[in-house]
């Protein structure tokens, strides 16, 4: 998720710096106004803590390990503005001093992780924990989701920044000058690793630190010390929920027909298909020809396994199951690959 | 270099600090209870007490970092209150005149290089650039740390760190120096180096208040010993007198009696720091 130098064009880097600068400036002004001077050492200390946290190898369910950024807990404790400063500081030290993440791309990295991440984490936490009692388990889940959401938003933004490079910057022959993968590859590739491993790591760290702070320093998480009582379990329920969802996927076989809205241009020409679409749409009349945009973009991407059935498999149900196994396998494989890449991407490791 | 550290001329016997029934509590835990104390210019005082006796807290009140919850604390006649410290003019004068060396180097040395550490104080007080450079170099030379100036403080040895910590405060040439356990955690040679440094700096004109629990250095560092126990003064006399008063020392948890045997005769010593004779068996 830390974008190194060379992957983004200078204009992209400049735009990201320009996007980050007003946020930094606004954050500095806000923190300066509060408790003059006291925030200075606290910000540095929190930034240092975030930096050290990024080095923890967190063991995750399933046998993998991941790294957290600390943006989840930082946003909850410090609020979004101070948090974006603290994480930006940690990222700057990482880039400048340890060569982890580029210098030209520092603006982009800060925007993705520190700025967007902080606001996302803060918003998610407050929305999910709205009205919950101080010692409610929901708050821990909110913290976990805050971390998870923040990391995935950061990854998505990074993927978009990567993905638009080949479209915008290529040489006369068509060779991409910077990051070589278009959006349709960049996004799934990045999200796979973050939806699973990095997101989980951040969720675990956010939830765990939140629980710890709620028990030991409740004032820091905005809770009066008197209100904390009872035992709390971690976000184990989250994993349980995900596992249940995973097990329920074969139910998709039972569904028939085409999902609403997932039509192809060809369906508009076929009279039987037209009848089905109209029936499913409250008997609205269909346009005679497919919409222009649909016709143009529908064939942009030809999936390797169209309609979940490779052409050599005759049974639709079997094809579906096969696709499910393949899909899960791809995700896990990509997650494993993504994790290896992330490990290799740390220049500190010995080759 | 001695001329550099002359400070303001003060009348001997002028009152530097006057604490009158000062109480202070932190998060509902009382640290000082009704403490009264008068400190005159030029005195060398040792604040003796075990951990939790309130000596660190007292030093911080004397340095205007915390403020009394009850009672009054005056510096040269002016009350040390939060409101007083908010006045820039008063605050700058005070910070120039009184310096505190924290015990923990992690806290005292927060700058990235030795040079920055020593330059921090003058920089905050707004001295002109050339004067700062000159004073910093002179001070570093005086404590023998000029060759360390670009090093990170956390890479130095314990003794070097302590010398830099002291330098970072005496660069301002204060009249009053407050030291929180300056020699604990140092090896014997570094300890005596630090004590010697302070003696050379003092030259008889400065007020030095040292908080410590190390009785063995008492005679070297102070002419007056104030014993604190649970936030109040329980003894205030010369070091010799205080050391002889084993009851007070034991109650304040500064010593404990120990027993041993001489050829079959067990006996008890009040303290190993006192000269005593063993009974002839």
């Amino acid at each position, binding site marked *: 998720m830390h974008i*190194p*130098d*060379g992957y983004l*064009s*200078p204009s992209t*880097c400049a735009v990201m710096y320009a996007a980050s600068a007003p946020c930094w400036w606004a954050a500095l002004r806000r923190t300066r106004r509060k408790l003059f001077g*006291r925030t*200075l050492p*606290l910000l*540095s*200390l*929190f*930034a*240092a*803590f975030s*930096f*050290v946290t990024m*080095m*923890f190898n967190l*063991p*995750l369910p399933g046998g993998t*390990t991941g790294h957290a950024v600390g943006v989840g807990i930082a946003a909850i404790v410090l609020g979004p503005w101070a948090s974006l400063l603290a994480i930006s500081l940690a990222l700057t030290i990482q880039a*400048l*001093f340890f*060569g982890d993440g*580029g210098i*030209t791309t520092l603006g982009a990295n800060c925007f993705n992780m520190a700025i967007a991440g902080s606001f996302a984490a803060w918003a998610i936490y407050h929305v999910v924990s709205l009205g919950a009692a101080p010692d409610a388990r929901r708050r821990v889940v909110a913290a976990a989701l805050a971390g998870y959401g923040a990391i995935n938003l950061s990854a998505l933004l990074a993927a978009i920044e990567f993905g638009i490079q080949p479209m915008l910057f*290529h*040489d006369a*022959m*068509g*060779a*991409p*000058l*910077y*990051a*070589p*993968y278009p959006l349709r*590859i960049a996004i799934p590739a990045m999200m796979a690793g973050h939806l699973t491993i990095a997101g989980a790591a951040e969720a675990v760290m956010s939830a*765990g*630190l939140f629980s710890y702070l709620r028990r030991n*320093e409740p004032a*820091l998480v905005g809770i009066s010390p008197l209100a904390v009582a009872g035992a709390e379990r971690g976000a184990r329920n989250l994993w349980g929920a995900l596992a249940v969802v995973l097990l329920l996927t074969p139910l998709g076989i039972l569904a028939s027909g085409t999902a609403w809205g997932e039509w192809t241009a060809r369906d508009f020409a076929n009279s039987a298909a037209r009848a089905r679409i109209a029936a499913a749409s409250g008997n609205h009349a269909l346009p005679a020809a497919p919409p222009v945009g649909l016709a143009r973009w529908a064939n942009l991407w030809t999936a390797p396994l169209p309609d979940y059935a490779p052409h050599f498999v005759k049974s639709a149900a079997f094809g579906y199951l096969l696709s499910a196994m393949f899909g899960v396998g791809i995700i896990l494989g990509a997650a494993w690959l993504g994790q290896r890449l992330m490990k*290799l991407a740390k*220049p*500190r490791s010995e*080759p | 270099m001695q001329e550099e550290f002359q400070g303001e001329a003060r009348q001997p016997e002028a009152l530097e600090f006057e604490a009158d029934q000062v109480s202070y509590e932190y998060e509902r835990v009382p640290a000082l209870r009704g403490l009264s104390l008068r400190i005159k210019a030029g005195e060398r005082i040792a604040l003796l007490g075990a951990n939790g006796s309130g000596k660190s807290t007292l030093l*911080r009140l004397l340095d205007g*970092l915390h403020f009394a919850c009850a009672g009054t604390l005056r510096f040269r006649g002016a009350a040390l209150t939060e409101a007083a410290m908010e006045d820039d003019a008063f*605050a700058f004068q005070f*910070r120039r005149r009184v*310096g505190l060396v*924290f015990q923990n180097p*992690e806290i005292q040395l*927060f700058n*990235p290089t030795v040079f920055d550490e020593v330059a921090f104080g003058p*920089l*905050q007080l707004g001295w002109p650039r050339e004067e700062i450079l000159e004073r910093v170099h002179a001070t570093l030379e005086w404590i023998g740390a000029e060759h360390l100036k*670009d090093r990170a403080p*956390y890479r130095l040895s314990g003794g070097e760190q302590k010398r830099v910590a002291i330098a970072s405060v005496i660069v301002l040439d204060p009249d009053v120096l407050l030291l929180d356990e300056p020699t604990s955690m140092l090896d014997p040679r570094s300890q005596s180096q630090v004590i010697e440094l302070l003696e050379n700096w003092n030259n008889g004109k400065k007020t030095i208040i040292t908080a410590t629990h190390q009785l063995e250095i008492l005679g070297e560092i102070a002419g007056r010993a104030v014993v604190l126990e649970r936030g109040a003064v329980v003894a205030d006399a010369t070091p010799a007198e205080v050391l002889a008063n084993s009851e007070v020392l034991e109650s304040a948890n500064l010593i404990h009696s120990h027993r041993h045997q001489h050829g079959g005769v067990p006996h008890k010593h009040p303290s190993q720091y006192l000269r005593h004779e063993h009974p002839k068996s």
Partner: protein
Amino acid sequence: MSAGVMAKTVRGFTQALGQTLLSEHAAREHGLLQALDPRVKLVGLLALVVAAALSRRLNVMVALFGLGVLLAVASRLSLLALAKRVWLVALGFTAMIAAPALFLTPGVALYRLPVGSLAITVQGARSALLLIARVESAVTLSTLLVLTTPWMHLLKALRTLLVPVEVIVLLAMTHRYVVLLTETANQMFESRQSRMVGRLSGQQQRRLMVNTGGVLLSKTLEIGNQVFLAMQARGFRGEVRLLDEFRLRGWDYVAMFGFAMVAVAAVVAGR
């Protein structure tokens, strides 16, 4: 996977600390770059990095990389160490990321694989090469900057780039406490490792890590408050100030001219 994860984390910490030691050592050598004013180095080397980023031509990037190697030699940096810590590592991860691009970039086929329908395209090969060259030259130049300049000088030089004083002081203090917290975390993990018998379950390890994180966080906040007191004790009242001893000398002007020439030439040639 018992001691494995913790041992790995401890190793990571040790390496990070070792990195700080390496930088301090290199910055004290008597080489070409070490002798220059930090501000000149900062602006000059960054200009070259930007030139590498702007370039569309492979030969310009290779030339910049070559210049980086020459400067490293002139600054008495060990090329072997650079190769191990910087070049090979950057090559490794960039090659991994760029490899699929060889096949996936649309264009003229250069070489068809014997099996399947995959082919390496000319555009794919060019793109991969460009990416690798760009990353290597950028990384070399920025590493040169960091290795040959004492950390605090580098931070103070950022003023030239109009970075606000507060940010510089924040960075300095963050760095200082990174070292402290890293050592503390290291000690906590090591003492845990030495007391561990047998394997911990995944969940136990997670709990351990998070608890260590929690204790570290408490200590962090405690130190933060205390440092504020220490700063106040020496006159800090909220306004941040910095002092540097930088002075430009003859060689600095020569270097400024040199950097400017090379950067402009690289940008022009790379269009």
